[in-house]
């Protein structure tokens, strides 16, 4: 066990799962929500030449996906340091 106590291990995992849950909810909302389930109401809104629902399905969701992964990388790095379970290199 690399954690100082069992409580630390549990708390680390809990924070990790919370972060995952938040990010996956956003992941679901932009793609399945805006791009598929709500596509018709959103298509009534226009962003330049794009209908918004169409834009989320073909462009917007992909940009959000990229941001999600980098947010995850950053948050996890902070979490690893907080509980002192990071790797030596960085």
């Amino acid at each position, binding site marked *: 066990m690399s954690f100082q106590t069992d409580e630390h291990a549990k708390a680390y995992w809990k924070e990790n799962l919370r972060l*995952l849950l938040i990010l996956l909810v956003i992941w679901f909302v932009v793609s399945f929500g805006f791009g598929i389930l709500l*596509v018709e109401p959103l298509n009534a809104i226009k*962003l330049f030449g794009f209908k918004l629902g169409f834009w989320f399905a073909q462009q917007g969701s992909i940009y959000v996906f990229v941001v999600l*992964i980098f947010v*995850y990388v950053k948050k996890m790095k902070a979490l690893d340091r907080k509980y002192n379970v*990071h790797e030596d290199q960085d």
Partner: protein
Amino acid sequence: MDIQGWTFLLVGLSFALYIGIAIWARAGTTKEFYVAGGGVPAVANGMATAADWMSAASFISMAGLISFMGYDGGVYLMGWTGGYVLLALCLAPYLRKFGKFTVPDFIGDRYYSQTARTVAVICAIFVSFTYVAGQMRGVGVVFSRFLEVDIVTGVILGMCVVFFYAVLGGMKGITYTQVAQYCVLIFAYLVPAVFISMLMTGNPVPQLGFGDTLADGSGAYLLDKLDGLSTELGFTEYTSGNKSMIDVFFITFALMVGTAGLPHVIVRFFTVPNVADARRSAGWALVFIAILYTTAPAVASFARVNMIGTINGADGQGVVHAEAPNWISNWQKTGLIAWEDKNGDGRMFYSGDERNEMQIDRDIMVLANPEIANLPAWVIALVAAGGVAAALSTSAGLLLVISTSISHDLLKRNLMPNITDKQELLYARIAAACGISVAAYLGIHPPGFVAQVVAFAFGLAASSFFPVIILGIFHKRMNKEGAIAGMLTGIVFTASYIIYFKFINPAANTPDNWWFGISPEGIGTLGMIFNFLAALGVQKMTGEAPDHIKDLVESLRYPKGSGEAQGH
């Protein structure tokens, strides 16, 4: 220089580069062969993963598919990029911490069972083979069109190059070759897209250009014009699409989960030095993939407008065939465009109703696009070099999974545990040689359903691997009985549904006969749900995993002490 001269030059130069890298990075040990010694930096690994993932299908076919499907094409865009989020958040870091070479290794150790390992090996080999056959075909098509050789010569040529660097170089050679291939393919994709975007909308960024106004002075938005043209010609609106919402939902989900479960993509995350790098790698991979994937829908709508314009003419009355631009007659020779003058007026006409006189193959859109827009010969040749790069990089990665599955998972871990490192490497190379021969045979004599087979590969990956890997990490008590039951339920259900509608009774393959309106392309999602249910149910009845497995799972959950990937 003409198109053919440029193609020889650019494809030849890119080949010389790949082979040079393969020789420079020759693998000496099994570890280097499998995972490049774990020493590849995150950005390079991200590029290699992107090249690995973006196959001939992404490069050549995807924009064409979207061009004909409109909004529905979004299933590929969201499905294949969204899967990366799952991979980065739920799989990559933990599998890297686990530190073995392959997915079957993880499943075999986590579920302490040779049976589970064997089921996983068979799934991995099957998924990889279905995929690689389509790639070899892609190489053949590009070669035969641009080098004007027949398709058999094209496939054999491609096969020799893939064999050379996959078998000699192993993972290390492949990783750096794939970095080069990524650069070639993305450059080849962006150059014509930027050119065309400038021509049509005056906006140099294709991602913004297709939401911009047309440069013809009318002030109309490009997508509005496309919607208008589509309805006028008897298609559904470009920005709306044809498929039912539930089907779009299920197909997208199956593609996402299938991406996350593909063994040749997962194995990439074993090649980085540590867990933090595995997380970063997935991020970079998605950046590099997103560059192509956000350009593709732009290319699709430009190509659609251009194509309708050159065939139906500015007045919408049809262009006289004798005066048609060169690209139409060039592609007519390959049989991928056909014109039948139904009303006998000597003019071509393209539409979605009975007035239609054109048959146009979707796969030609990306290759023909620069010709349609009258771009210079070197741009057309560049697209050919890019298509070849995309097909080769993916086939090499898949071959490696096939050879690793056979030499490492099947021989070393199952049948012949006493072979030495050197022998194992030899068997890996023999397996790769056999694998590529089978793939080339399938490329030359395609079973006639390459496109269906790809859907098959995704459905199977989604319904077999994904749930047991997720449960293996996030559900400590999951035991081997549950995992095996889950994998079998998922794969048998999904395979039967697909085989029934695609091969046994293709006539019944209509939305009325599908379960809940879910097409065979999307059924992997339901298979995945059944896999989860079966695994959880069986686990409840058969007790918990033993304590040493729970400790193993516990140790996956934090990065400290990840070390180098361990082999044996």
